[in-house]
């Protein structure tokens, strides 16, 4: 019981800390947390690991990013992305960095009409980046004091969906996969 209270307290403190540090114009890239956590002083081998999160897949023409304008949007974005674009419930891991990191890069807003509105509106792309450019970008993100690496847990995603009745919203109800749906319904006490 005490441990659970302690865990909840830590989560609250962590969220408050994130809010204090948030910079109003930031970008998010889906990532693996462990690749961006500093091991020593941002040595090259760690940047080399991190750049794996920026590399394009074969056939991909641009680097996808999401732009955030308000604090708290990362939670909403993570939930909508996970619930609609991932079929197995999983944590949403990301690296967030201030827009200033991208100075000198061409960054275009590129809507994705088939995605939920929030994702479509926030979606941006760096067109056709070279490997060298991606490595430099990884270095910049890595060295940015405003960089934040985070994980929105499965439970937070489900809680958000319950709190905001996402299963009932017209835009999302048919986009949420059945495994997520089962978790949300269970949380709501629906047999």
């Amino acid at each position, binding site marked *: 019981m005490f441990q659970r209270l302690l*865990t909840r307290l*830590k989560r609250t403190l962590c969220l408050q800390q994130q809010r204090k540090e948030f910079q109003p114009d930031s970008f998010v890239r889906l990532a693996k947390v462990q690749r961006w956590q500093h091991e020593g002083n941002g040595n090259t081998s760690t940047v080399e690991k991190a750049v794996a999160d920026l590399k394009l897949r*074969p056939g991909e023409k641009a680097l996808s990013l999401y732009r955030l304008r308000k604090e708290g949007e990362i939670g909403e974005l993570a939930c909508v992305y996970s619930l609609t674009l991932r079929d*197995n*419930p999983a944590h949403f891991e990301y690296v967030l960095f201030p827009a200033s990191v991208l100075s000198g890069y061409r960054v275009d807003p590129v809507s994705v009409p*088939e995605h939920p509105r929030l994702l479509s509106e926030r979606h941006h792309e760096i067109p056709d980046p070279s490997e060298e450019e991606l490595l430099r970008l990884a270095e910049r993100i890595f060295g940015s004091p405003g960089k934040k690496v985070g994980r929105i847990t*499965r439970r937070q995603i489900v809680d958000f969906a319950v709190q905001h009745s996402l299963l009932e919203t017209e835009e999302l109800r048919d986009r*949420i996969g059945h495994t997520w749906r089962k*978790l949300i319904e269970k949380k709501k006490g629906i047999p």
Partner: protein
Amino acid sequence: MAVALAQDNPSGNFLQPFLLPPALRDLIGMPSEQSTTTVEVPSPLSDVPKPSGTTIEDTLTRERGFEVAYHALADRHGANATPAGRTMSRKVWLDVGADAAKWLINRLRAEQHPETIFGIAETITELGTVALPIVLAELERYEAKQEYAVLVEALAWMTPPQQPLLMSRIAGVIDRYLASPHIDCQVAAAQLTRILNNDDAARTRLEVAKRRAGPRLREEIEDLLNERFGE
């Protein structure tokens, strides 16, 4: 999926329809006639599963088909923007069955792209009972490996198997991965307790692990206990 194919292979000429499953033939718009090639030549692709009685040409054709479908695994655009569309896209793999699971596991070992890794895991989950024994055999071959945590989690979302032997092998994988020093392995193992239909077996494992867990695993276990037992 179709978009990715058009980009990767505008002509589609190299994709002959020899052993491609019907869904992949539809996908690439190829006629459905069968090859008459019968010459047996050893396959140079030692890592790629090869069904018995196939030719090197068949194997290469199938390998190319897999490559095309593989690049679409992480695609969340167009038809793949909805769960139903993604399920349709994965039919390519479901039609192939066990060999698809082996091929995907083989690629997972070197894959770095996070969304492709998710795509592999989701496809393995959807392959379900076809993939389960293959994944278990792979997990049992080695000590817990960090890059296989995603495979362990993929099993967590499958329908629990009926066979006690499979269930006991799953329990063995849970124990092995809970004992791993890697947090991703431990978390994946805790998630895999979802598939245990014996509440006591799941609870015992989670509570033992919780005693020596760090903060992240502890939180994960508390969420699982809360979800399953309302604690």
